[in-house]
């Protein structure tokens, strides 16, 4: 039997990590969470405004005590430049969602039109057989539209990870650019041989 210890200090934290673009670094960061059996609720990683520097956005629900320790462990990794953590109040965040619905269903019902407008959705693709809508917002907003589109034959749904901007992030862009200009990053070396297997003689 497990005893559940409720932790009133737990809340959502948004972790921002600037890193080198390095194969394997995602694992190195991910295992810092999995080792402690912390669930990653959302993970976004993509190049920052500087190509060689990547930015991770990671969302977990934990106490500040745990979050701050985890962040120090992340920052300790050789290829990590900087780590920040923020509560939801400290950031502006968005998730993007795509919804695919049968075109005939929605075309028939004018009500859908209004419903989408109310939810700030826009059509990305309209074909005779299906239409893809897109909306951006908080989890509750993208969730709400799922429920609303369900009766109209929702075919497929996908939601992106959370991306967020820190409210108090004066000078981030300037610092990154300065950092890169002082010492430019390296390109990733990928495996160039995977597609040439039959040309290589081995033993």
């Amino acid at each position: 039997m497990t005893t559940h210890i409720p932790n009133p200090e737990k809340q959502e934290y948004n972790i921002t990590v600037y890193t080198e673009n390095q194969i394997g670094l995602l694992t190195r960061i991910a295992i810092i969470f999995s080792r402690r059996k912390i669930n990653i609720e959302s993970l976004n990683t993509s190049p920052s405004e500087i190509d060689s520097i990547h930015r991770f956005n990671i969302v977990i629900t934990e106490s500040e005590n745990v979050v701050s320790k985890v962040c120090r462990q992340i920052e300790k990794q050789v290829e990590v430049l900087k780590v920040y953590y923020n509560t939801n109040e400290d950031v502006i965040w968005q998730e993007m969602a795509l919804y695919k619905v049968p075109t005939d269903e929605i075309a028939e019902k004018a009500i859908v039109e209004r419903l989408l407008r109310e939810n700030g959705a826009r059509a990305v693709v309209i074909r005779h057989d299906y239409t893809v809508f897109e909306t951006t917002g908080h989890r509750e907003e993208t969730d709400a539209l799922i429920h609303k589109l369900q009766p109209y034959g929702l075919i497929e749904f996908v939601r992106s990870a959370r991306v967020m901007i820190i409210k108090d992030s004066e000078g981030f862009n300037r610092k990154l650019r300065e950092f890169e200009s002082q010492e430019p990053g390296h390109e990733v070396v990928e495996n160039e041989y995977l597609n040439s297997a039959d040309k290589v003689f081995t033993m």
Partner: protein
Amino acid sequence: MDTAQQELTAAEQKTGIELSGSQAVLEALIAEGTDVIFGYPGGAIMPIYDALYDYNDKLNHILVRHEQGGIHAGQGYARASGKVGVVFATSGPGATNLVTGLADAQIDSTPLVCITGQVFAHLLGTDAFQETDVINITTPVTKWNYQVTDATEIPEVLAKAFYIAKSGRPGPVLIDITKNAQFQKFEYKGYTPCKHIRSYRPKPIVRREYVEEAARLINSAKKPFILWGQGVLLGSAEQEFKTFVEKSGIPAAWTILGAGAIPTTHPLNVGMLGMHGNYGPNVLTNECDVLIAIGMRFDDRVTGRLDKYAKQAKVIHFDIDPAEIDKNVQTTVQVWGDCKETLPILTELIEQKQHTEWLAKFNEFTRQEVEAVIKDELFPSSEELTMGEVIQQVNELTNGEAIIVTDVGQHQMVACRYAKFNNTRSNITSGGLGTMGFSLPAAIGAKFGAPDKEVIAVIGDGGVQMTIQELGTIMQFNVGVKILILNNQFLGMVRQWQELFNDRRYSFVNITSPNFVKVAEGYNIPGQSVNDRESLKSALKTMIEHDGSYLLEVMVTKENNVFPMVPQGCSVSEIRLS
């Protein structure tokens, strides 16, 4: 130093000379001053071994008997010498055999560069023969790792590997090199050691105001207490530390990895911390008013129950790794940085003092511990031998000058408690991971790291059977280590717990051993076994005076317990003397 870089003319450095990836690996090792490699060959690392054939005069390779032995030897070498240990292994099983040693080196901050062969790059992910995903297997147990698929990367990657392994808080690095990259010829333009990586801060910048705050607290303290760990050794700050301790007049106690930074007999050295540490340091942790932790990480074996640990004290923590500060114990003042830099600033700022009454308290606890525990352990009245008296005799014969390499268990705790350490880097043990089987191979490495020292491996009858195959390495390379087996015919430490906490339900702790003397003889290593007090001293003397390796088995009392003991889940002040 004979390096390819120096051999290259200016013109060659521009256009490069043609080398294979394998040769570039060996050139890097030479440039880094590697004097010994511990390794084991196999298919995926054959090109490197083939190149090694021509580098035999420049690089000393020791063929171990198992890759785990190889990496522990690398650790022993690094711990004894302060240099980076270098290990070679092949792909697949060779690489996976390194994992225990990597975990050990990671948790004990030991600088290593391990080079593993890997299948051809085009075969990655195909379940090729002896392919394992060694990068992902070793990610949690390395400070850094990297897979090379192209030879042109080798000089720079190895330079980074050495720099990362030894700088800041040291640790193990693994470089996995696919076979094609080992064969690949490329234009080698010399080797440039790495001194900087843009994303990596090996040492935090020292902020003087925090040292000043620490000094203020120390100056106003009535009952200050210093805890030191391996950070003092890793930072080569023994002298700076001693100066600080002596000026402050503050009693100081050590974690097992910190042993020897100041001599055992130093008047301010009040002993060992932790589960089987000394009585005074444990009890008085909960009585001091300012706790000054230097280069240690408040491991749970040191702190016992955290919510009852030094709650009355203000805690000052000096560490090079910011992630260690506030990890387990909440600090009042945190001093980030290399203690080689922070300690002199601190010493400058503190008042010269003597804490006579406070120190007397430690001495009073020592007196009680001697009465209740130590006297019987070192000078037993029983007929049977104790582990403690063996260590005591070793002390008398070596006068605290030997390097003691212990395994894990009761003998480890006894050796750490009672061995006399005059010098730094003379207690080599698997602290954080508690890896049985560590001692024998680590002692081999230590002997290479400190060839002029007497190296004594102190091992239990259980642990020695985990890596006993390394007797073969000792035989082949004439490694002059002394092997002291303390045989209690039990997995003693586990038996102790079963006796104390499981109502003596001895579940699989009864272990039989081969005739160790005969086993050693099979490896051309002389030895003997003793079980009585009369023969003990002369047997130890024979062992120590023997020129070359020697195995001595001492039959000790079967069911002795190591005390004092802080039972798991108890506070340090609840330490038991019996």
